[in-house]
């Protein structure tokens, strides 16, 4: 083996390690996000006249997050079974959701979801700073290793949803 090739192998190895570490970081972040989302849902109240059935969390084009949320599938939320449910993003599909998670980089879907939430109790969770301005009621953001969130209380109220004071207490920012 040539000297160069050795360096390459070494470099590749190191790279592979780095890449593996990076991939690991990403996977951890998604798992934490999934846990935060699940926990968030626990501290939000839906009105009593919501039809029976599973507690469906819709995910627009859910990739890794959908997989991570599968860990919580079947767990109880407000007396229902928690079911993560990936959807395409059509307005009709949103009808059967209790909540919808719109990941960053999908402002159209977020706006549509926000619009739908005006007619029915649908919790819209967005991602990134400013998501609350574009239709999200709760927006998640990474702050170092921690996940923080902002809450738009006004939007929640308009959707006839309630947020537990415990949740508000933990929120980084609460918008009226």
């Amino acid at each position, binding site marked *: 083996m040539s000297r160069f090739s050795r360096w390459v192998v070494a470099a590749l190895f190191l790279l592979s390690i780095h890449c593996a570490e990076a991939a690991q970081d990403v996977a951890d972040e998604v798992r934490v996000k999934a846990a*935060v989302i699940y*926990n968030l849902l*626990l*501290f939000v109240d839906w009105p009593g006249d919501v039809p029976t059935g599973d507690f469906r969390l819709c995910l627009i084009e859910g990739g890794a997050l959908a997989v991570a949320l599968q860990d919580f599938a079947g*767990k*109880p*939320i*407000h007396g229902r079974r928690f079911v993560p449910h990936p959807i395409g993003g059509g307005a009709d599909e949103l009808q059967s959701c209790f909540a919808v998670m719109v990941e960053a980089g999908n402002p159209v879907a977020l706006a549509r979801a926000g619009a739908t939430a005006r007619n029915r109790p649908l919790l819209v969770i967005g991602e990134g700073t400013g998501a609350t301005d574009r239709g999200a009621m709760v927006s998640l953001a990474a702050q170092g290793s*921690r*996940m923080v969130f902002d809450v738009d209380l006004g939007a929640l109220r308009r959707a006839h949803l309630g947020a*537990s004071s*415990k*949740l508000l*207490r*933990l929120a980084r920012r609460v918008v009226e």
Partner: protein
Amino acid sequence: MKVLPARSRILLGMLSIGSAFLIAFVVLSIERWYGVRDEFIDELVIQASLVGANASAALAFEDERGAEEIVSTVTRSPAVVEAALYRQNGKRLAAFLRSREEARLGSMAPANATTLVGSHVIVAQPVMVEGRVVGSIVLRAILDGLYRQQLGFMGSLLLIIAVATLVGHLASRGLRRRMAEAERKLERMALYDRVTGLTNRYAFELALEQTMRRHERDGSGSALLFIDVDGFKKVNDMLGHHVGDRVLKGIGERLQAALRISDVVARIGGDEFGVILVGTALPDDAARVAEGLIKVAAEPLSLDGSPVFVGFSIGIAMIPQDGSSTEQLMHHADLAMYHAKQMGKGNHQFFSDEIGGQVRRRLDIEADLRVAIEQGDLYVVYQPQLATATGTISGMEALVRWRHASRGIVSPGDFIPVAEESGLILDVGRFVLEQVCRDIAELRRLGLRVPSVAVNVSARQFMQVDVMGQVASALAAHGLQAEDVEIELTESILMERLEDQRAILARLAESGVRIAIDDFGTGYSSLSYLKRLPVDKLKIDMSFIRDLPDNPDSLTIVVGIVGMAHAMGLLVVAEGVETQAQRECLANCCCDLLQGYLVGRPMEKAALIPLLRESATPALEAASESLPASVISRGFQTIGAE
């Protein structure tokens, strides 16, 4: 049964109350401790649950800052000194520790829900979200406050018990006082007389025994007085027991007031009081005290304004000379008192062997007399009365005699007073009346002319018995007439209750029974009653006859009595005629009848028969001087001087 004194019983009661309080105190304290501790733990659990619920979101979101904020809210509860939130995996998320406290909670959640260690308690509660355990909250609280509270409670309890005991003690003071009083009363009832409040006989005997024993040691002496209240029976009978009791009480007070405090005064029964003059060894001193008491008694007792008169008869026995035992001393003092009553009441008498003998003899006589009446040992003798004018036996006096089985003939002077006192005179009187009537009837059947027979009736008989009825029935039983018997009364009786007597006498006289006054001239010599009473005969007392004919005074009296009697239409009998000179003198004085040894001694019925036969012939009158000889020569029994 042994009775505990009041003080021991109260002590026992307090002991039992005390132990009851102690048990109550312990039980209440323990019960309260567990109750309060459980409550404290329950509260701690609730607090943990609350904090845990608040912290659920922080736990769920792993928000350390939020968790610490929430956990530190436990600071509001002063007992909680440490708190920690643990994740579901047991790792600590947040902790709070009060300043100056040592950390006891580790980085891992404790295994037990509740841990109680000496001075603190650790409570762990799961934190749930949607029925899912997301972690646990652990609180540690110190029990200092609880201990302080418990001490406070126990202190208050003790205080309450103390106060309750004190209040109870004060409240029951009245009750206890009444109990003690009742006990004292019982004690007094056993030793004190209820009517007078004085020592009773039992206690008096104890005191007497004590006194005797003391004198055995110190060689000194005391005086024992027995006091009988004269006239008490009359007060009791006339005014009732209630007044009688008050009189006794009054007398008791007087006795106490008149005596020294060291003297013992007791009511020893009925109307008798006993006194021990402690240390009064000289009879003269005792006599002075007795005199003083008699004087005190003489002052009338005032009951509701009306005076009651009583007197004392006091018997004195000296301790230790007059008896070697309490019984003997009491008996001797009693005998002396009895003697004092015999001596006319209102005086004192010392015990002496002579008095003892006399009194005993009297008592013996009384006992024997009862038997004699039942057994028929009494009999009647007759002493004839000679008419000076005719020389015939014109009357007889019946006299009772007692033939005692061992003593022989008992003198009427000995037994009549005893019979009078004891009330046996009523039986004796009835017997005599009955016997006389029977004898008259028998003699009549023999064909003899029997003159009227005089029967003595005592004052007591006259007052207590229906004499009239007795006489009438005795006469009727033997078919006799009223004039066959004569009632002989002493002058003194008639003076006492004249009005009552007069009515009875009037009825007797109406029925035809004659009435003679015995021992005339020895009584009150108030002649006015003679006018008012239906009297038939006067019997001049033998003391006037004895000195005839030589004593001019006696002669004058006899002449006067005869003159007066005749003027009032009464017959006169001279008693105790013993000599011929007396007989002649009396005949010259126109005395109607003579009675005495000269005429005839008292004789039994059998001896009367020849006398009555002879008397029926006028020979006696012709040879009046030969009468005594003829009568006496017949050997009439001389049974006793009258």
